[in-house]
């Protein structure tokens, strides 16, 4: 079965709402019963008032008749006092009765019958008084003995008795209604109170169990949280102490940094001055590099010219080599011819001896030519090798000059860049100088701020100690609360 997870406020509000509804219902029933009872009591009182008014009206008529009879008997005016008083009060009593029974038609109709009878009775009472005063006792007795007054008075008594009986009946009914209302009110109050007590007891038990459980859980959480808070406060205290130590070190370091920043600012000022001088020197160097670049270009042109001449020389050396091959071949063929001539001369015997000498001379000459050709070939080869070496060296020089030119161009570009960079460096150095001054100011401000932070850290350290103390007290409080809640649970 799923438990309804209501908050403490919801549970309290719900419980009090149920109790309030119960009280409201009971109060409503009680109020209605009490109102009925009050109304019935009022109606009972009203009935009593009507009966008193009827009794007073009857008394007034009787008092009037009593005064009239006393005067008739005695002839003394003092006996007319009840008669005169009744004449004054009887009309008031009649009006009172009519007003009190205005909501009762039957009583009104009876009063309509009473009115002429009452007027006739008052007129019948006044006539014997006049007769007594004017003609004496006998005339008055004679008139009274006729019995007219008695009959009128009897009718009035009967009608007033009916009206009183009517009121008595109403009174009886209203008393019964009042008793019924009082009983209903009592029942409502007793049952409502019992139901309210039962509801409140059940709800109180439910809320008590639920709150005990919830508060127990909450207290458990508070216990664990307070322990964690205590541990955290311990750590915080330790951390804040370390932070305080670190802040002191930082403050010292910041002071050193401030001194270093001032020194850097001074150095930056010198660097800016040196950068300005370097920028001027770099401008002169840039002009020198431009001139050197032009000289390197001239060297490169001369080197190209040398290479062209050397290539031409190599070509001609090659042509000389070709010619020497032909000369060598000629000398070789001449040598062969001389050998063959010697052979032929040897075959010719004595006649060929002198021809053999000439052939030998030709052979020697051919051999010399061959040897000379070899030497020339060697020399030409050496020249060609030298030319090739020179060409290669010159080409290497040309390439080196070209590379040098490019490098010099790069150097020029670099130097130009260097000049620009030096100018920018000078500008940058001035900016650094300015920035370093600002930095020094910032470090001073930071130093001040660090002092404030160090002070705040010390205050935080004190606050952490206070937090630790508070967490300990909270832990003790949670233990006490837990014991309290467990005791209630056992109960």
């Amino acid at each position: 079965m799923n438990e309804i997870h209501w908050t403490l406020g919801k549970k309290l509000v719900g419980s009090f709402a149920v109790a309030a509804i119960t009280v409201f219902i009971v109060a409503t029933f009680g109020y209605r019963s009490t109102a009925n009872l009050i109304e019935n009591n009022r109606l009972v009182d009203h009935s009593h008032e009507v009966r008193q008014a009827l009794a007073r009206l009857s008394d007034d008529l009787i008092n009037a008749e009593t005064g009239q009879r006393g005067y008739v008997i005695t002839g003394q005016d003092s006996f007319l006092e009840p008669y005169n008083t009744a004449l004054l009060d009887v009309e008031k009593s009649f009006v009172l009765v009519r007003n009190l029974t205005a909501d009762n038609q039957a009583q009104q109709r009876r009063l309509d019958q009473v009115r002429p009878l009452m007027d006739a009775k008052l007129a019948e009472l006044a006539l014997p008084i006049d007769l007594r005063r004017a003609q004496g006792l006998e005339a008055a007795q004679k008139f009274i003995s006729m019995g007219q007054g008695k009959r009128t008075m009897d009718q009035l008594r009967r009608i007033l008795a009916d009206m009183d009986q009517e009121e008595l009946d109403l009174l009886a009914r209203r008393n019964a209604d009042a008793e019924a209302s009082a009983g209903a009110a009592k029942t409502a109050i007793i049952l409502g109170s019992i139901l309210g007590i039962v509801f409140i007891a059940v709800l109180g038990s439910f809320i008590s169990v639920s709150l005990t459980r919830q508060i127990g859980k909450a207290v458990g959480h508070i216990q664990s949280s307070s322990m964690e808070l205590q541990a955290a406060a311990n750590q915080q205290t330790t951390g804040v102490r370390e932070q305080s130590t670190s802040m002191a070190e930082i403050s010292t370091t910041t002071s050193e940094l401030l001194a270093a920043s001032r020194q850097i600012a001074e150095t930056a000022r010198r660097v800016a001055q040196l950068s300005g001088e370097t920028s001027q020197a770099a401008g002169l160097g840039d002009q020198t590099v431009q001139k050197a670049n032009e000289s390197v270009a001239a060297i490169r042109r001369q080197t190209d010219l040398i290479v062209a001449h050397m290539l031409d020389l190599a070509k001609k050396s090659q042509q000389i080599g070709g010619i020497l091959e032909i000369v060598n071949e000629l000398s070789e063929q001449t040598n062969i011819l001389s050998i063959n001539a010697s052979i032929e001369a040897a075959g010719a015997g004595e006649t060929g001896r002198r021809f053999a000498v000439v052939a030998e001379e030709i052979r020697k000459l051919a051999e010399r030519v061959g040897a000379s050709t070899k030497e020339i070939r060697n020399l030409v080869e050496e020249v060609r090798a030298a030319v090739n070496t020179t060409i290669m060296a010159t080409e290497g020089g040309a390439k080196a000059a070209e590379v040098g030119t490019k490098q010099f161009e790069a150097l020029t570009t670099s130097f130009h860049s260097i000049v620009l960079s030096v100018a920018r460096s000078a500008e940058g150095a001035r900016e650094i100088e300015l920035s370093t001054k600002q930095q020094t100011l910032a470090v001073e401000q930071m130093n001040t701020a660090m002092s404030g932070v160090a002070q705040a850290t010390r205050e935080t350290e004190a606050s952490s100690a206070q937090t630790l103390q508070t967490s300990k007290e909270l832990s003790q409080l949670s233990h006490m609360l837990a014991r309290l809640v467990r005791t209630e649970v056992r109960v």
Partner: protein
Amino acid sequence: MNEPQSPAQRLRADFDGAYAEALRSPPEDGANLLALKLGGDPYALRMGDIARVMAGSVLVPLPSKTAAFLGLVGLGGEILPVWDLGSLLGYPRSRHTPRWLASSAGAPHWALAFEAFDGTLKASLRDFSPPYSGGGPAAALAVALCATGGHLRPVLSFEKLLQSIHQGELR
């Protein structure tokens, strides 16, 4: 005093000196030799055995079971068989055909091919000595040894070389 001469001055001096020398006849008791080289070793052929010396002639190769036989060559209006002198003397056969040719003066006419021509020599009888035995194929085919020009050259003869060819074919 004696400053080094340039090659041109030396050539000029040799050339002028050659005309200043007296004409000399070949020695009566000597012989003219054709100096040549095989595998860097000096050899010589007697000029009297040679009919003609040629260089760079066109040689037509022919198939043969003998490695020393190179082919045929047209020389002096004749078609002559050509034998490799180096192979006959036991040198390894070169990949290139020898450039120089020397044809025999006596019958039958044939020719020898060799790598390098080393000039002509004049030797007196004092310069010759008999060949020694047990010196390999060159020593066996030499008819004499000639010590001239700073070298000791085996002197070869067409006749003995031809006998060697025949003996080799017979074997």
